[in-house]
């Protein structure tokens, strides 16, 4: 099991550690997921997400390779801009969802899910054959902290010369320093709040330096370390999909509601012809959000969805929404049942629990 550079910090804070993506990661700290969730919505929390993967594509044909790999259109990116996208197999199944950073005209960074690093890199390598560019997997070298919440900007501002006031959402600055450590400062996140993701290289020493500096800078706002547990509840409320739950290699971006990052007008890319057909015919099913209306029941991944006697789909993510204080979730339903306010039922433990399809985001 791998450890991130922040392992000692997690231990000191008595985090509950779990195995995730091959790393020992903090799922929560002693105050719990609901507390951490509310802290990020109301002030600022700091996530160690160093398990995420960083690939670099550099060379004269870097853009051509990126364009072949991803469903979104990187040709329109400006230097310093980030793009959310999917990456598909030839059959339209999703390899991963990822961020594409344009560092220079011939230099891109791809940030992928930690649990997919190996298979993603294999896929990128396979596709890179014949392109005039080099690819590098620097996932083991980069540490990554996500500082998220309305007070994140004021916290980070104290530690960098980077002009955060002029940095828009999905923009980044490549050659920055944070608490004296060279860093990439990116206005991105997975919480739906104002937030930043801070990439830097190093070991335990750099990790401790940046961690301690952020804790001190955020102290006046009550900053705390927060774990993967609230990362999941925060993203679910905002309708952000999670690879392995809501999207997998057995789902395609059209049915997953990721049509907005699938640019079918773009030149050829992996999966394009299949996705064009799916789009033209309408998919058989659609990922939807729902609110559970039953009393005292939380939908969990894998529970079946029903309309009357007909099985219409399954739950992919479910949890309590700490913001709404109601159980919410996501799941695939047959196309005819995708519309908001459709009444459905969830089966668990031999019983049925009512739920209502809702427009996403849920908050």
């Amino acid at each position, binding site marked *: 099991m791998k450890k991130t550079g922040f392992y000692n910090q997690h231990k000191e804070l008595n985090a509950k550690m779990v195995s995730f993506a091959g790393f020992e990661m903090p799922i929560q700290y002693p105050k*719990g997921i609901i507390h951490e969730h509310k802290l990020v919505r109301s002030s600022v929390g700091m996530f160690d997400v160093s398990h995420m993967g960083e690939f670099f594509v550099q060379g004269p044909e870097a853009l051509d390779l990126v364009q072949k790999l991803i469903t979104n259109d990187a040709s329109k990116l400006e230097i310093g801009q980030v793009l959310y996208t999917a990456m598909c197999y030839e059959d339209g199944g999703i390899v991963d969802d990822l961020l594409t950073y344009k560092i220079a005209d011939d230099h891109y960074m791809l940030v992928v899910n930690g649990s997919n690093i190996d298979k993603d890199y294999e896929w990128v390598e396979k596709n890179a054959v014949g392109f005039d560019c080099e690819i590098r997997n620097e996932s083991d070298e980069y540490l990554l902290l996500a500082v998220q919440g309305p007070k994140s900007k004021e916290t980070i501002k104290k530690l960098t010369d980077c002009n955060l006031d002029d940095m828009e959402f999905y923009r980044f600055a490549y050659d920055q320093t944070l608490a004296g450590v060279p860093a990439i400062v990116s206005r991105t996140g997975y919480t739906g709040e104002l937030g930043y993701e801070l990439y830097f290289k190093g070991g335990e020493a750099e990790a401790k330096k940046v961690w301690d500096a952020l804790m001190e800078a955020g102290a006046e706002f009550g900053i705390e370390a927060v774990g993967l547990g609230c990362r999941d509840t925060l993203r679910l409320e905002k309708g952000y999909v999670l690879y392995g739950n809501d999207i997998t290699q057995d789902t395609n971006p059209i049915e997953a509601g990721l049509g907005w990052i699938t640019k079918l007008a773009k030149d050829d890319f992996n999966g394009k012809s299949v996705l064009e057909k799916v789009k033209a015919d309408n998919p058989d099913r659609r990922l939807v959000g729902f609110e559970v209306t039953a009393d005292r029941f939380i939908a969990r991944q894998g529970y079946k969805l029903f309309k009357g006697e007909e099985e219409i789909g399954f739950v992919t993510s479910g949890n*309590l929404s700490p913001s709404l204080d109601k159980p919410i979730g996501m799941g695939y339903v047959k196309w005819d049942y995708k519309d908001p306010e459709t009444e459905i039922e969830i089966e668990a433990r031999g019983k049925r629990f009512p739920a209502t399809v809702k427009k996403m985001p849920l908050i």
Partner: protein
Amino acid sequence: MKFPEDLKYTDDHEWVRVEGNIATIGVTDHAASELGDVVYIDIEMDGVVSKGDTLGTIEAVKTVADLYSPISGTITEVNTGLNDNPEVVNNDAYGEGWIVKIELSDSSELDELMDADSYKASIGH
């Protein structure tokens, strides 16, 4: 983490406090900590229960767990205070966080439960 000496414990991480022929039942600090934030407790059973019956479910943010009856008897009271304040299961597992009371039908079953030391050993404390 506390494991009061005057309670009995089960493999399923429940505690039992016996007063006269009434057993008060809850889940241990260890269980509450493993579950994380408890958000709902749904006691579905009513009336007569046998040892091992599923009394209901505990939903936490991370997971759901069944609650089993550690003893046989008749449910006399359910802690309805948990409907509004389920977090007391995390904060006061052996006090305000009690879940049900059962009138014992076979007090010899109590002998099969663990004492605090055995329970602690069973969870590696």
